[in-house]
């Protein structure tokens, strides 16, 4: 019998703690595949965020650190500047990157840090119980927007990738979605390109924003959540290459 699909070595052989239909597992796998395909496991350092993916090091078999909420780009700066030959990536959620760590991501991009950022946007704080994130959609009901997000009170969904794309220090920014197989294949391509740029010594930050589902706090079935990414999220967060 011919093996056509198998676990990639950098993805550990264990079940994850993620909810059914959550996008983190797929995103982890894509990163692991890219690390193995580029053969960079032995020189890669990853940064896990505060949030649902805080235990990413339990699933990704690379050297990893877990840092304070929002600070991965600053930590990555310290790592990459002192170890230019290493491949440094941060894995950050929307609360981490777009809210509490807005200054850190902006300035790491602004300085043109040669790091790769995987930005998981599921429009909600997952680990703390489904509160509003900067990326929460208008009218979206969350634990802290019981009537739905209202623009005049909580502002509009924050498009961080568009913001970062204006900085000369970013070399590549693409927004993808893990909503259907074709989109997942595109996300893999984007993540691979982002890592390749760092491997090739590109002169700035590469970032891939990934729209993922949070069925638990969207109060949807996993399949409905995937549909909602397509029908609603991609309207506010258009897919495609924003830079580079």
């Amino acid at each position, binding site marked *: 019998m011919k093996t056509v699909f198998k676990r990639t070595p950098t993805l550990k052989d264990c079940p994850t703690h993620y909810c059914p239909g959550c996008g983190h597992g797929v995103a982890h796998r894509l990163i692991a595949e890219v690390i193995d395909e580029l053969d960079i496991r032995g020189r890669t350092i990853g940064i896990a965020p505060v949030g649902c993916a805080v235990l990413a090091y339990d699933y990704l078999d690379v050297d990893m650190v877990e*840092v304070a909420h929002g600070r991965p780009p600053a930590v990555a700066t310290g790592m990459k500047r002192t170890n230019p030959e290493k491949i440094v990536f941060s894995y950050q959620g929307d609360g981490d990157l777009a809210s509490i760590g807005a200054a850190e991501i902006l300035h790491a991009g602004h300085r043109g840090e040669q790091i790769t950022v995987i930005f998981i946007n599921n429009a909600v704080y997952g680990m703390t119980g489904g509160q509003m994130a900067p990326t929460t959609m208008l009218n979206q009901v969350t634990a802290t927007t019981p009537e739905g997000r209202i623009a005049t009170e909580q502002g509009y969904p924050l498009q961080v990738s568009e913001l970062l794309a204006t900085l000369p220090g970013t070399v590549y920014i693409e927004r993808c979605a893990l909503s259907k197989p074709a989109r997942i294949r595109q996300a893999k391509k984007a993540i691979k390109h982002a890592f390749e740029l760092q491997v090739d010594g590109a002169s700035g930050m590469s970032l891939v924003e990934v729209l993922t589902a949070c069925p638990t706090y969207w109060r949807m079935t996993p399949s409905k959540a995937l549909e909602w990414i397509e029908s609603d999220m991609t309207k506010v967060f258009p897919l495609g290459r924003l830079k580079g």
Partner: protein
Amino acid sequence: MCGNEALAEAAILAGCDAYFGYPITPQNEVPAYMSRRMPEEGRVFVQSESELAAINMVFGASATGKRAMTSSSSPGISLMQEGISYLAGAELPTVVVNVMRGGPGLGNIAGSQSDYFQATRGGGHGDYRTIVLGPSSVQELVDCMPLAFDLADQYRMPVMVLIDGILGQMMEPVILEKKPRRSLPTKDWALTGAANRDQNIVRSLWLGEGVLEEFNNKLQDRYKQIAKKEVWSEPYNVDDADIIVVAYGITARIVSSAVDRARKEGIRAGWIRPITLWPFPTEQISKAADEPRIFLTVEMSNGQMVEDVKLAVAGKAPVVFYGRPGGGTPGVDEILDQIRQLTIKSEIRT
């Protein structure tokens, strides 16, 4: 050299691989000096967007096994407390210099000693300590830098060098030389890429039942060891003293002059100068309190170290405090006056 520049050069001699910092008075000479010297040495200098970012850059460099440091002054150090707690939790060696200024809030830019509580009690959240060195001259500051890096590496924890704005700005002649390192453990925990070995993880999150408690107990065991082995103080004319003045840092220099003048007046005065503020020289002060005498603690604050002096004296002798908060500096005459008053009152003046 001024204290700030001298400590920067001493850090370079101590093998500091990377400096990350954010401007704040009265320590701006440190990043300015580092921005020129670190690239000359082929090492890393980054001016961060905030103190929060600076301490996290230090965290990143340290996690890869590099010697990294930052410096700041009181308000900036408050911002860094998040990172210092994470460094303690992740067992990462780091050197942080606090060139203290007057507080609270934005305060002023004059030298002060009002961050003693914050420095010696941990400062951020959680049960942890940082080793705190409180040098009192530019030369001692220079000598503290390699020691700070060695202690950080040996015990895998943040070490703070706590000085005030006066020492940072003060010019004194110094001898700068490369010191031999202590025999230090290899950094086999460092994140260098998992080439031909298992994955390394640097973390401070421990969710399993009892795991964090066990980790905390491990930290406390280490702190106990440090409290035994790494405590330094300097005594002066203590043996026959009726009054012992306890002071650290720049205040100890002023106290030294006041004590000498008191001696000339026939007052049997001496001083004890803690060099490590944590661990505090509790035993040394406790021993001194076994004789009948008075303790006077002098600080550029409203009374912080005096609590440690009281804990050490443990009721065996009176402990009096004299301090100048908010950037005030006590003069020799002021301290001498305190010494005179206390020795007259207690009628033990010769």
